[in-house]
């Protein structure tokens, strides 16, 4: 009997990412807009080739994140086992410092107003949010955006260092793409395994990996354990924090903030059913290049009657099974075969997958005067241009070029096949056949990738209503719990006391309601809106500041 578990997963279509950072900004506004998390980006967008955020996080010889195979062929944490963790707990030698991320800063805006009258325009100087001293800005979460400074910075890209010298010389002319990253919510999370307190856990209903803020003691091993460096240390509260897959939103069936606000509509969210008992076995496959197939073999076919029966046995509700059957993630990974995981060689079985970008290939073709949409040209170029394939393979398939090549060929076939339709020509089934698909499947795939309708992109089953009471953060808190109020914070200052409620809106609304001196405006949010609850439709109250009424 297989133990079927459900997992919320994401796929990002990199061809459509324009690197606008909207996902990062909205995520930050919703989640890490607090003291102690100034440097934290649960979602970040990095330009590849580039060093990433934190710098060179992919260099596991340096950071020792993820799992490796021991001499006995069993999985072990790359940074060392349990005893080693406890022995290095007093000073973790593999912990990134604030400088590996960047030193967050603000500006002396007050200078602009308070400066005395003078010949020169006053300047708002940058000030470190760590020391409070004036600082020089040297790095940030996307300092090398759009290959800025690439001749100096990109050679330190750990992925680039793995591909050949020939490729290195050429890369700048040929190749650039954006890689948005969130927590991978892995099936075999090494951060959870690294946590000495057992505060990190994977939710058994939807696979979201979370940190129990009441149990975390700040031993910092999770930061080391995660090879994607997506667990962050809040230096004010002394606790680990990470991407929550916006669980308060997905529980009510709306997509994560990053997905909702993505202007390119490139993110897909849906369910995957997997066999929880086979995860460890699949993650211990000897050949790194076989990890991709191993991970796919753990994921189950939601249409298979046996799987459905086993899932029912495991207590997965019917509407979740229905959602799993409609899952865009399952379609992209299995039916269309165009999604690949990020760094499967870390053996964590990541669950945020990517459709690798074809656009660099198309760009090269068009720039050299070829027809970048023609099937023959594209297929030829995919094979001839070793740069994208080699580099993408290091990121998405442990260095094996075949899976990447197969995906790019399918994307190329879709382009060519759909162009014929758009130009009113006859459908050329041979293009589809060449990549092992049918014209009908290609059209479906085109619909999902290019049209990307909202309800096809996001198939998110709601958490169960019978558990609903727990989802709500009713205004059951103490009425004195507003900022500056007698109920605010614990007895030991900011880091103590109860955690801030998830629904930040309640907090602001409460404060507004209690602090306002005008009864008439008591329930207005005045410029505050909670993006967590916004479904993207219409303009809720408070999205824009209210116009002042004319007397």
């Amino acid at each position, binding site marked *: 009997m297989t133990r079927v578990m459900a997992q919320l997963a994401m796929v990002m279509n990199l061809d459509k990412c324009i690197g606008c950072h909207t996902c990062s900004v909205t995520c930050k506004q919703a989640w890490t807009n607090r003291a102690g998390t100034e440097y934290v980006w649960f979602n970040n967008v990095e330009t590849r080739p580039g060093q990433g955020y934190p710098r060179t996080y992919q260099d596991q010889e340096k950071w020792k994140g993820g799992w490796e195979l021991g001499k006995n062929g069993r999985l072990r944490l790359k940074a060392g086992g349990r005893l080693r963790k406890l022995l290095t707990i007093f000073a973790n030698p593999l912990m990134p410092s604030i400088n590996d991320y960047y030193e967050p800063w603000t500006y002396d805006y007050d200078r602009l107003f308070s400066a005395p009258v003078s010949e020169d325009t006053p300047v708002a100087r940058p000030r470190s949010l760590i*020391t409070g001293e004036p600082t020089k800005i040297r790095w940030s979460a996307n300092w090398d955006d759009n290959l800025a400074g690439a001749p100096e910075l990109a050679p330190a890209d750990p992925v680039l260092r793995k591909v050949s010298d020939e490729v290195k010389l050429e890369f700048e002319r040929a190749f650039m793409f954006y890689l948005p990253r969130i927590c991978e919510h892995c099936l075999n999370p090494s951060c959870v395994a690294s946590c000495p307190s057992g505060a990190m856990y994977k*939710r*058994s209903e939807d696979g979201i990996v979370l940190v129990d803020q009441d*149990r975390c003691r700040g031993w910092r091993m999770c930061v080391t354990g995660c090879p994607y460096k997506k667990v962050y240390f809040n230096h004010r509260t002394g606790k680990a924090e990470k991407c929550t897959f916006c669980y308060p939103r997905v529980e009510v069936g709306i997509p994560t903030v990053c997905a909702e606000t993505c202007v390119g509509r490139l993110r897909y969210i849906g369910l995957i059913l997997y066999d929880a008992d086979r995860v460890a076995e699949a993650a211990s496959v000897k050949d790194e290049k076989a990890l991709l197939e191993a991970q796919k073999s753990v994921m189950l076919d939601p249409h298979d009657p046996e799987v459905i029966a086993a899932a029912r046995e495991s207590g997965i509700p019917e509407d979740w099974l229905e959602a799993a059957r409609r899952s865009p993630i399952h379609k992209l990974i299995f039916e269309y075969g165009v999604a690949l995981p990020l760094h499967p060689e870390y053996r964590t079985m990541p669950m945020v997958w990517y459709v690798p970008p074809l656009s660099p290939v198309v760009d090269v073709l068009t720039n050299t005067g070829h027809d970048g949409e023609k099937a023959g040209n594209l297929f030829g170029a995919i094979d001839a241009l070793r740069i994208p394939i080699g580099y993408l393979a290091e990121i998405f398939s442990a260095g094996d070029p075949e899976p990447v090549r197969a995906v790019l060929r399918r994307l190329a076939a879709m382009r060519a096949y759909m162009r014929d339709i758009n130009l009113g020509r006859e459908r050329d089934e041979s293009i589809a056949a060449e990549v092992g698909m049918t014209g009908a499947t290609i059209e479906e795939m085109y619909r999902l990738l290019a049209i990307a309708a909202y309800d096809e992109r996001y198939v998110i089953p709601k958490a169960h209503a019978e558990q609903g009471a727990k989802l709500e953060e009713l205004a059951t808190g103490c009425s004195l719990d507003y900022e500056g109020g007698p109920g605010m914070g614990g007895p030991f200052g900011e*880091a103590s006391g109860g955690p801030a409620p998830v629904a930040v809106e309640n907090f602001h609304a409460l404060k507004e309601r209690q602090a306002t001196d005008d009864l008439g405006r008591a329930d207005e949010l005045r410029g505050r809106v909670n993006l967590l609850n916004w479904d993207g439709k219409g303009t809720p109250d408070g999205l824009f500041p209210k116009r002042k009424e004319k007397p």
Partner: protein
Amino acid sequence: MNALDVTLWVVAPYVSLTVFVLGHVWRYRYDKFGWTTRSSQMYESRLLRIGSPLFHFGILVVLLGHIGGLVIPKSWTEAVGVSEEAYHIVAVVLGTIAGVCTVAGMVILIYRRRTVGPVFTATTRNDKLMYALLALTILLGLAATVMANIVGGGYDYRTTISPWFRSVFYLQPEASLMAGAPLLFKLHALSALVLFAAWPFTRLVHMLTAPVGYLTRPYIVYRSREDVAGSRPPRRGWEPIGRP
């Protein structure tokens, strides 16, 4: 035995112990979110990598030494055949090494805390008080050992201080035993009592949740959304239906 002795060696220990125990219960119940090491490694790790292990491993050995010296009666070690001289030599040598490591680590850590900008900024008043109490206790303890054993001719605390320590836990405190101890030992014990009373309200609480359970638990932790165990319990009046 006068009133002062009773106050210092009978009343004070019980007050301190009570505050220590109830304080931890209270803190665990109402401030789990504040229960953390509040590590400052993100800001600076070069000095921390030397100072922190020196201090922590040192203080762990010191702790073991205190258990050996205070909890285990002299008659037991002698029954096993450990002579007073042998015990004394081992205790003094090990104790001094561990004590010096602890103090060295502490000096590095305090120096770091004061001189590294971000670390100093993150230091609260509570931390400063804790550092003062901790440093005072450690220094007095080391001074007492050094004065008694290296400068003086040795002091057998296992006939006075240790029985007093145990008598507190038997609920038959014998203040007279403590009254005759050398001044430095007395001061060390008193500062420790103050430290224990302050303990639950400082970041020292992290010691009580040392993650030894990590050695035996399975690597991957699954938890249900419904499972509130370990997280905070529902507020009174808001328990879900079906939980009698």
